[in-house]
């Protein structure tokens, strides 16, 4: 086949490896079912293949490297949803997809089907380097300095089954972006990488020790300008220090962020530099030839657009106010004249954030083929992206998205809620995240109202593990258990961009029944006290949280 647009084309070695891995897991499943492997022995083996045992059934998490899919892969995911699950999948905050109703005995067959389209579930769990995430607008955004996908792929290959880093103290997450607009939450990753070009070739700014969960911390800059040839060597050294000194005695203190706090960023850097001094640079050197060989396995789409495409879009916007509103919220400037980047909201009003049915996936695969070179990206905000749409065809695309209930104009508005699966599906959760998200998105369904409110991110996590990234929500909700009942703690002021910070707790947790009204009162208060041009975070910064606290607890 031809190289897919947007992601790496597997070769025979890649496919051979996947086949061997599936055969190995098939044997492990067989031995578990026969009883020669205990659950204790089997659990780490199934987790290495992305298979969790959740509340109601097994859950399979499938890797989507740097969030990029092609249409045949999306059709295969639709097929898996339809044949092996209950007709839908859930896009996650790590740009992956999860299936919630999987049978253990079906898993080898599912993995074989996924391998047919160069997909797998390896390293979507366990104490290893997880799926490397990247900017959903990579290779398309006008504001980008450098396309990070080739280096994301290099990191994927480097980290897959890395013999030193298969049993780290804890899971390890890496994100890479090539834009000055941090869309990957680089400062909230174990390692966050911001790539940029220089006269001497690509250089990489590296943040270490960020994370959410029980101990939310903003990552700190370890290096400003690592040259390309030393990228892997530097990452290797950072991970070696973590692997050697990271705590294995306490799961809650095992992430790299705790070690960075313990050593201090300067102390950690000194350890890394000592490690680098012991390493042979020639062995770890990332050569331009290697980078080019990887780059050659990505297809380059023809991004020319028909003459007058921009004029056609301007006319369509003028003639159709609803379409114009969607363009304002759900598109981003493309670097190529006449093209535009589209965020497809997987947050229809009142529905489950990030859930897509098999029929929607199939339809979207067809749409991607017709409008964006057969390429689809998954965002860490649980939406999808068509990156290279010709502007004169944008109206037709929006109409097709509306027909499959994916045309809502709410990207980065209050309806664009990020929520973990919560207690409805997750074995770790304390509270249900999804019903709150559904009720809030129904309450604020009016797209005119959403636009009036302006950018406002709500993130909901069902427990302190923070899969819904509540710490970085402008409004964050954290589910807590009080004597078996659901309560939610509100945080305000979080953000994951260049000005990264965690939200501050507003006050005592409120019962689940009160949450939607409390959030509505906070939003109403914001609308009544904001000054012209102020966003929610601006008003919060100017006035502090007192007015919002008063609103949230008004009737309690």
């Amino acid at each position: 086949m031809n190289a897919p647009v947007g992601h790496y084309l597997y070769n025979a070695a890649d496919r051979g490896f996947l086949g061997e891995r599936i055969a190995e897991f098939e044997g492990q499943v067989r031995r578990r079912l026969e009883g020669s492997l205990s659950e204790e022995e089997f659990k780490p083996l199934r987790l290495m293949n992305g298979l969790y045992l959740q509340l109601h059934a097994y859950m399979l998490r499938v890797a989507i490297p740097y969030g990029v899919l092609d249409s045949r892969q999306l059709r295969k995911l639709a097929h898996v949803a339809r044949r092996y699950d209950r007709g839908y999948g859930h896009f996650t905050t790590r740009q992956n997809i999860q299936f919630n109703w999987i049978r253990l005995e079906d898993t080898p067959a599912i993995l074989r089907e996924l391998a047919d389209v160069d997909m797998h579930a390896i390293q979507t769990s366990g104490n290893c380097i997880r799926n490397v995430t990247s900017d959903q607008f990579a290779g398309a955004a006008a504001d980008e300095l450098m396309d990070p996908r080739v280096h994301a792929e290099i990191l994927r290959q480097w980290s897959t089954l890395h013999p030193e880093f298969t049993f780290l103290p804890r899971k390890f997450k890496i994100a890479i972006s090539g834009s000055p607009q941090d869309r990957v939450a680089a400062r909230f990753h174990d390692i966050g990488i911001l790539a940029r070009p220089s006269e001497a070739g690509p250089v990489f700014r590296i943040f270490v020790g960020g994370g959410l969960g029980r101990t939310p911390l903003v990552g700190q800059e370890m290096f400003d300008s690592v040259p390309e040839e030393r990228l892997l060597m530097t990452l290797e050294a950072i991970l070696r220090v973590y692997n050697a000194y990271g705590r294995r005695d306490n799961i809650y203190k095992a992430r790299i962020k705790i070690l960075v706090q313990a050593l201090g960023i300067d102390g950690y850097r000194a350890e890394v530099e000592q490690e680098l001094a012991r390493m042979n640079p020639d062995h770890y050197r990332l050569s331009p030839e290697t980078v080019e060989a990887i780059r050659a396995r990505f297809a380059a789409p023809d991004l020319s657009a028909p003459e007058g495409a921009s004029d056609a879009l301007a006319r369509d916007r003028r003639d159709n106010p609803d379409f114009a509103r969607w363009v304002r919220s759900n598109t981003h400037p493309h670097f190529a004249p006449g093209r535009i980047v589209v965020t497809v909201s997987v947050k229809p009003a009142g529905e489950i954030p990030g859930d897509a049915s098999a029929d929607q996936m199939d339809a979207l695969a067809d749409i991607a083929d017709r409008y964006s070179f057969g390429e689809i990206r998954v965002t860490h905000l649980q939406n999808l992206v068509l990156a290279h749409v010709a502007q004169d065809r944008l109206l037709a695309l929006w109409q097709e998205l509306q027909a499959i209930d994916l045309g809502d104009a709410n990207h980065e508005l209050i309806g664009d809620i990020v929520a973990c699966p919560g207690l409805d599906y997750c074995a770790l959760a304390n509270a249900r995240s999804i019903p709150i998200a559904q009720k809030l998105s129904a309450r604020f369904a009016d797209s005119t109202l959403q636009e009036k409110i302006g950018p406002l991110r709500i993130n909901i996590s069902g427990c302190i593990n923070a899969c819904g990234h509540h710490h970085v929500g402008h409004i964050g909700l954290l589910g807590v258990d009080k004597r078996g009942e659901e309560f939610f703690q509100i945080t305000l002021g979080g953000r994951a961009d260049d000005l990264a910070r965690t939200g501050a707790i507003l006050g005592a947790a409120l019962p689940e029944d009160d949450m939607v009204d409390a959030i509505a009162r906070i939003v109403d208060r914001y609308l009544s006290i904001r000054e012209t041009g102020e966003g929610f975070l601006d008003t919060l910064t100017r006035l502090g949280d007192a007015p919002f606290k008063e609103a949230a607890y008004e009737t309690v």
Partner: protein
Amino acid sequence: MKRAIRIGQGEGLVLTANRLLDGNIVWRDESGIWRPSIAHAAVLTPDHYESALDSALATAQKDAVVGVYEVVVRPGRPPQPVSVRERIRAFGPTVHPQFATELEA
């Protein structure tokens, strides 16, 4: 090590697990059979559940179940788990009513 359990006045305990083959939730009945509906679960008194739990753990591999543990319930038909978590396990995800557990299954 056994977990500390808080049992209120008039409450009892049922035993639950996930089926090895498909992960589906099951409940242990009076005769030690794992059943898909909590409606068939044997409600145990705090004084007697430990021996039933030990027995269930001992036969888990043979019975093809994993993650055996006890759940506090208010007796009734069906028994009502006290915690939200266990009510969701017993009756299905609240966000997908079409996947609600059939109680007489």
